[in-house]
């Protein structure tokens, strides 16, 4: 049984009269100790997907269909009270800009201790203190800095502290949405290396959401590519992205365009064509392949019939008519 099994999940947002399907029938699984990446551009539904798992969607969102199973238990439809028991202990999350979520007037060690004791009321203060120090040590913050206030930390250290806090109740699944976006390049690399090593050492399961293929490549074994609310391609990160543009085996034209858009220092010093146009309006009914309008290879059938996933290699699926066997 997978740790996390999402089956045909959809999420709608009500918007002044109409509605918009941000996530449309997405299925994904995360095994124990596995790290899975979700990549896509703004508006593709990746953040909505991440929020849906711990049932933290905004008030105007509904889940019209699908299931989310964590450790075999169905989360969709759980009451807030029931879900609260799973958050932090079973599933924890770090959101975009999380480092700004620390309470500015409380020392960092105290904030982590409170988090532990709020979720595990039987833990004594001394036990909690010991755990705080070992958590901070785990993320590379020296015990001497534990009693600092958040403003005394740099962005990278605050993000480390947030990671420590998210691990406070030993969750089996960590969801990280753009965990490095606001950081400097060196700090980004440090945080990604930290996540990768935590994932390996602590056999943590990780669902990382990012627009950055390079970040996903550093951390995640498997990759899902989202476009306009659906998963267009998924497979082993190594296979899809390769070592660079030259040996990347991504098959979907959108994934290929994304890969080309990332400058590759090992590749040619030449700008990619880039994509023209915009993703489709999700509040309108969809006909055909959602990428067809921007796809350089689109044919007539692409504009009329929605493609279904095709298996290209074990674990490698892509939804594109051009990949179907003729």
């Amino acid at each position, binding site marked *: 049984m997978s740790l996390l099994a999402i089956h045909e999940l959809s999420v709608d947002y009500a918007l002044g009269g109409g509605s918009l399907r941000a996530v449309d029938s997405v299925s994904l699984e995360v095994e124990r100790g596995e790290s899975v990446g979700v990549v896509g*551009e*703004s508006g593709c539904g990746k953040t909505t997907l991440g929020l849906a798992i711990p049932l933290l969607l905004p008030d105007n969102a509904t889940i019209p269909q699908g299931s989310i199973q964590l450790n075999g238990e169905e989360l969709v439809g759980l009451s807030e009270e029931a879900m609260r028991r799973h958050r932090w202990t079973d599933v924890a999350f770090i959101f975009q800009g999380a480092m700004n979520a620390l309470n500015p007037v409380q020392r960092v060690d105290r904030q982590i201790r409170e988090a532990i004791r709020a979720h595990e009321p039987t833990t004594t203060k001394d036990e909690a203190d010991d755990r705080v120090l070992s958590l901070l040590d785990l993320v*590379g913050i020296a015990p001497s800095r534990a009693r600092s206030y958040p403003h005394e930390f*740099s962005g*990278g*250290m605050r993000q480390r502290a947030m990671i420590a806090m998210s691990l406070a109740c030993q969750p089996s699944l960590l969801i990280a949405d753009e965990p490095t976006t606001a950081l*400097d*390049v*060196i*700090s*980004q*690399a*440090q945080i*990604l*290396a*930290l996540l*990768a*090593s935590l994932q390996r050492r602590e056999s943590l399961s990780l669902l990382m959401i990012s*627009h950055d293929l*390079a970040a996903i*490549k*550093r*951390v995640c074994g498997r990759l899902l590519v989202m476009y306009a609310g659906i998963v267009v391609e998924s497979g082993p990160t190594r296979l899809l992205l390769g*070592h*660079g543009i030259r040996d990347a085996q991504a098959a979907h034209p959108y994934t290929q*365009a*994304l890969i*080309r*858009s*990332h*400058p*590759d*220092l*090992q590749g040619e*010093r*030449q*700008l*990619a*064509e*880039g*994509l*023209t146009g*915009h993703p489709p309006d999700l509040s309108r009914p969809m006909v055909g392949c959602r990428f067809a309008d921007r796809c350089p290879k689109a044919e007539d059938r692409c504009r009329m019939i929605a493609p279904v996933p095709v298996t290209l290699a074990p674990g490698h699926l892509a939804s594109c008519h051009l990949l179907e066997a003729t």
Partner: protein
Amino acid sequence: MSESPVLKVTDLVVHFETRRGFRQRTTVRAVDGVSFDISQGEILALVGESGCGKSTIAMSVMRLLEPTSGRIMVEGQDLAALRGRELRRARQRIQMIFQDPFGSLDGRQTVYESVAEPLVVHRLGREEGERRRRVLAALDLAHLRPPERLAANYPHELSGGQRQRVAIASAMVLEPALVIADEPVSMLDVSARAGILRLMMDLRDRTGVSYLFITHELAVAWMVADRLAVLYLGRVVEIGTSPEVVANPAHPYTRALLEVTGGDDELGEGAVLAGETPSASRVPEGCRFHPRCPLYAERGQPEVCRTQDPVLCGVGQAAQAEREHLVACHFPNTDDRGAP
């Protein structure tokens, strides 16, 4: 030299005085002795992390900040010496594009009004027909087509990429000699980035405009810039043509940046440069990079790194070339020379 460079920055120093507590005063050395020049039609990238001084340099060139010392020459003229009409005229020659295409456009102005505004401010194209012609030409130049239709749009009706094109059009409408682009693509979706970068290069080819391109992404700088300068804590630590610097990085900081941008394979925790850039109010003695430098540790903490501030010197054979590859390091790397 037959022609003076479009921009020549010599020994630029920008220090800020700040108070800590009641009595204590500290000096933030944001830019601490920076020199570079940009020729006509050239793209120079300033690459560095936050706090390295790259935006302060841009602000000084725009004369939005008064430098502590040093000289900034634009097309052979010292901006600091100009007053009144002459200063205004010189300022037309430098335009700026900002990071946030959502914040830099006025939401209540149409595209036409945004692009026409610089003309109004500089009292150019006073006749309505002339102004309209110039605005539409700038929109067309920025690939906002058809210009007549897009001119009537408001920013909220445009995508991020289109908004950045409007910002580029309003920079280009004055026909500047130099455009300062401060992180022009870092807020855009990856698929839109290439289009904007391509447009900027295309404009350079068609109008001969030069760019001072500010970015934290070494790979983007390498892609678009003819030359790049790597900044660390208010100093240029390495400068040279982009392919040369990326192929033969001589400074350990450049190498560290390259390692994390290279994107190949997972990095072990030990492989990433440790620690953080110190505050510009506490610049380390000697080489400012030495406390984090892997070479300093490897070489048994040589005294020279702690005591002497390295100056930019030529690297290898490039030292004789006209556009040199320069590095500020006591132990610059030259091992890779000739390697593929």
